[in-house]
């Protein structure tokens, strides 16, 4: 880096550092936090694998090419070797290829269900929060009506809720996503509403009222931007649990009806019967689930810290 000798240049450099929004500043802090970097690396790696993995794998994950070499009765399954890096599974398919391709469906289920829960939760929580914070007596009534329903949803254990939805909608991938999304709706709704309600008390909202800004506009341009931070952090953390829950639902046989398509939860369920012979079949997808959940959690927790107003300079 060159040394800035002219005073004007140095001042310009200083001026350049100004005008950072709180988001930009949080990003700058994230870049300096090791857990955030580890989390981000894991997440990016996972996403890349999910996107391009199917193009790179050595074998077709559906082909039972090594069927002839396995003997269920003797518990003989080819282990790791040059041709099959992690051996073959109980149907004679390449385990490594299945594991890599399985990441895709796991990611899709996690992301779609989290986005679904986020969208619905933000809509409900946003309406409740804006109504309670700005809408006076009628608004508080609307809010307590909405939140009572949300609390009822929240009271049901999440896996039970997901299983009930799956039971109603039947076995499919969409079912899993809707079920898991629904489970996270009350979390997002409560979180956003609480944050908006707290912001509605603040003086800058009073200032906007005094300026004559309409209520919907205050909710949109002041309450929401100041309240989404914790919701986005929560979405990252929810992604981790959504992936685990998706695996759990697949494990219970409620996932994709086409069991041939690799998915970590399904692989885990299949591995169950062979736990004494081939425990590694359970370990591979489990490690995948744990690592990616850890990645999202690290990222989410670091974001929570970076966005914390108490740590702001």
């Amino acid at each position: 880096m060159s040394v800035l000798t002219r005073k004007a240049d140095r001042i310009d450099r200083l001026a350049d550092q100004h005008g950072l929004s709180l988001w930009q500043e949080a990003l700058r802090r994230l870049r300096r936090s090791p857990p955030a970097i580890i989390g981000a690396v894991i997440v990016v790696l996972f996403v890349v694998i999910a996107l391009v993995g199917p193009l790179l794998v050595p074998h077709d994950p559906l082909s039972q090419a090594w069927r002839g070499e396995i003997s269920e009765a003797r518990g003989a399954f080819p282990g790791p070797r040059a041709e099959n890096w992690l051996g073959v599974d109980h149907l004679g398919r390449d385990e490594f290829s299945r594991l890599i391709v399985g990441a895709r469906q796991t990611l899709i289920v996690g992301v779609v269900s989290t986005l679904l829960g986020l969208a619905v939760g933000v809509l409900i929580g946003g309406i409740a929060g804006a109504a309670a914070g700005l809408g006076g007596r009628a608004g508080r009534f609307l809010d307590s009506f909405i939140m009572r329903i949300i609390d009822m949803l929240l009271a049901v254990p999440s896996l039970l809720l997901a299983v009930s939805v799956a039971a109603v909608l039947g076995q499919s991938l969409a079912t899993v996503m809707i079920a898991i999304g629904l489970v996270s709706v009350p979390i997002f709704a409560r979180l956003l509403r609480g944050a908006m309600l707290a912001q509605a008390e603040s003086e800058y909202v009073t200032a906007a009222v005094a300026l004559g800004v309409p209520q919907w506009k205050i909710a949109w341009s002041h309450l929401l931007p100041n309240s989404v931070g914790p919701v986005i952090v929560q979405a990252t953390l929810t992604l981790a649990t959504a992936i685990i829950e998706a695996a759990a639902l697949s494990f219970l046989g409620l996932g994709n009806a086409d069991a041939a398509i690799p998915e970590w939860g399904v692989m885990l369920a299949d591995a169950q019967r062979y736990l004494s012979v081939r425990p590694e079949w359970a370990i591979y997808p489990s490690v995948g689930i744990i690592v990616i959940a850890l990645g999202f959690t690290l990222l989410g927790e670091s974001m929570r810290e970076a966005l914390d107003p108490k740590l702001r300079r």
Partner: protein
Amino acid sequence: MSLLQVEDLSVHFPITRGALLNRTVGHVRAVDGVSFSIPRHGAYGLVGESGCGKSTLGRAIMRLNTPTSGTVTYDGTDLTALHGRRLRGMRRHVQMVFQDPMSSLDPRQNVETILLEGLHTHNIGSGTAARRALVADVLDAVGLPRNSLSRYPHEFSGGQRQRIGIARALIVEPDLIVADEPVSALDVSIQAQILNLLADLQASRGLTYLIIAHDLAVVRHVSRTVGVMYLGSLVEEADSDDLYATPLHPYTRALVSAVPVPDPDVEDRRERIILRGDLPSAAAPPSGCRFHTRCPWVRDTRCKDERPLLRTISTGATNHRVACHWAEEIAAAPAPASV
């Protein structure tokens, strides 16, 4: 005619008990029957100790709370009767400057967004270029550099933040500005700068001010008329200099006597009235004269059972009003021995 006329204004906050049924068990009489008026281009200072209802009064005038009774007439329009769109439209004419410039600015908006909000809200200026020019004008007027626009509130010092708050109020071209303790959150060294700015802006833009402060020195600086509040009511009102020179209400005398004098000799000899006890609760104000529990001149007759009205008294200047039964006698008598 006055630009702002406040008449018999009261703001009572209900005190509720019980989680479910919310029974009202009483009222905090934060503002209890206040009347005063401010002429166009006038500057009215409102002082009183913390908790006496100054902010509540200011917010009632701004219609940021709902007055229990009374009227606030701005330029012939009763603001207490306005709602919704009509009220929002009216807000262009009456603006507020807040006590804490940090919390009254949205931390996620840069200065440009903060200033444009008022222009968008009231449809001022046609087109981006015209609005940019208005924003630049107001930045100059409050003494902020042009490069402030892309910066965020946390990047400024307290005094500069208050300039942003003033600019936000100013940009919609209001006639009346209610400033609630505009300098009490600032360093003493900065306070004079902001007060001077307010005084300059009043002169250059023909503004009318209601300046609220707990500190007599602050309102004296910028107000021509000063009203003294005690426990939700006005107890005295006079021209600024007159009030300092000859405070007539016992409470004002105590306030004035508490202001230190720079000259050490005078400082040693001057009358000092120390008030007994604390500010009584606004939920259960004393009967009769609200001040009788702490008044050094309290008498057995009238003080405890008859509420004194704010009246013009004969010994004072023409527009000197006092709410004390015995103001004339007290004006003539020396201060009682301090308690």
